[in-house]
């Protein structure tokens, strides 16, 4: 396959970026999108220029590091896949492909296609945990039964890989799907109940502080989410936040 790649190049957070055009030939349909990017970089390095910087690590769709906005969509045209799982067979010979970084105030560009997603970490640090010490001397794991359906829902929420595709796809750069997935995971489990209210309040507060936009329920996040995190999580967070706000003492 022969492709024309339009790639966003930006030297640093303060620099102005632009789209660069590269021609790439000899692409095989069996290659993953990132392998195609490797090939592009190989070509660029051999030509004595600076390769495209992009985040990637596990290349099997679970670490959440890869983050490309391909042809107008987070992680490209596939559904339920990350950029690394997207294969070139999803494209045609002669295609022009636009590749951009996640764009959000809260995700500043580091270089080219690499962005800083530490805002997500800070949201988790604000309360995305159960306060239990790592003594190993908690009660037996089977002492608290959890109804299977609830456990399965908690798991589904917990499968979020923190890639940020939700923010990237949302026209408002809102992080509601990410935040609500963690809130939901713990809200659905008995272990999460003691901190349920304070958790949602602290996480939402941090989310707002980071400069993410507001949710307008377009649902784009859930469509583009590589792990299929459901919108019901956002509703659950809306509900929990309201009840926490009404009930809280301060």
């Amino acid at each position, binding site marked *: 396959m022969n492709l024309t790649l339009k790639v*966003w190049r930006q030297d640093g957070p303060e620099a102005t*970026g632009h*789209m660069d055009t590269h021609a790439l030939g000899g692409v095989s349909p069996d290659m993953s999108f990132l392998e195609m990017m490797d090939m592009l970089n190989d070509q660029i390095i051999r030509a004595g220029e600076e390769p495209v910087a992009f985040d990637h690590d596990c290349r099997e769709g679970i670490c959440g590091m890869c983050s490309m906005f391909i042809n107008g969509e987070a992680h490209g045209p596939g559904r339920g896949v990350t950029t690394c799982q997207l294969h070139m067979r999803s494209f045609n010979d002669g295609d022009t492909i636009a590749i951009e970084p996640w764009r959000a105030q809260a995700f500043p560009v580091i270089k080219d296609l690499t962005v800083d997603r530490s805002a997500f970490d800070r949201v988790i640090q604000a309360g995305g945990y159960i306060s239990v010490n790592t003594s190993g001397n908690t009660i037996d794991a089977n002492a608290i039964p959890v109804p299977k359906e609830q456990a399965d829902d908690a798991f589904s929420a917990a499968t979020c890989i923190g890639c940020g595709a939700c923010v990237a796809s949302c026209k408002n750069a809102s992080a509601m799907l990410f935040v609500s997935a963690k809130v939901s995971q713990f809200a659905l489990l008995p272990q999460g109940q003691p901190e349920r209210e304070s958790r949602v309040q602290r996480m939402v507060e941090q989310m707002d502080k980071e400069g993410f936009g507001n*949710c307008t329920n377009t649902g784009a996040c859930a469509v583009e989410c590589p792990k299929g995190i459901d*919108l019901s999580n956002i*509703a659950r967070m809306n509900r929990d936040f309201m009840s926490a706000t009404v009930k809280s003492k301060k």
Partner: protein
Amino acid sequence: MSNSGILRSSLAKKYVMALSGLFLCLFLLGHLAGNLQLFNTSAEGQLAFNEYAHFMTTFPLVKLLSYLTYAAVLFHVVDGIALTIQNRKARPTGYVKEKGSANASWSSRNMGILGTIILVFFVSHMQNFWYVMHFGPIGESDGLKDLHTVVMTFFGPENGLAGLAVAGYVLAQFALGFHLIHGFQSGFQSLGLRHSKYSPLIDRAGLLFGIGVPTLFASIPVYLFFIQL
């Protein structure tokens, strides 16, 4: 968590949007019920409509409701603008290529534009009818302010711009329809009212509401326009 923090929270803004929006949906139903009387253009119809208009502008409880409605409109608009400004700031550099249609409905992505059209319509609507009803000039019939005639005239041949008015009215109802199709179920979602069993029903009700209410609204001026040709 301080109270001020709560009010500033993005979620609180969403609750305001949802509550005011859903309240306005109720208002629309009430308004529509009144308007439908306009299909009856006979003398009795005229009387009934004028009596209804009189009741709506004088009965204390209705007055209270009307203030609530103004407040809801105000909140909905101000909050909507605030949210839009914040959302713009959340993405200072836009995408070169963005395929919004791939993952979200057109109406959900254009609530601001739709809302603005509705707001413009709302202002002109208030000027054409509400203002006339309250501050005149308006004739009398059977001792009541004759709003019925005002409406008939507005969409009738005496008004040289009636055709334009009807077209504007219909266009605004289209905007309202799309606004409602997204807004109705979105309001429930924002309030956290989502359930795997009931949400499909809410979605369907929203669709029905979003298509039905504006269609009925729009049919009135169209009808009045054509019967007076």
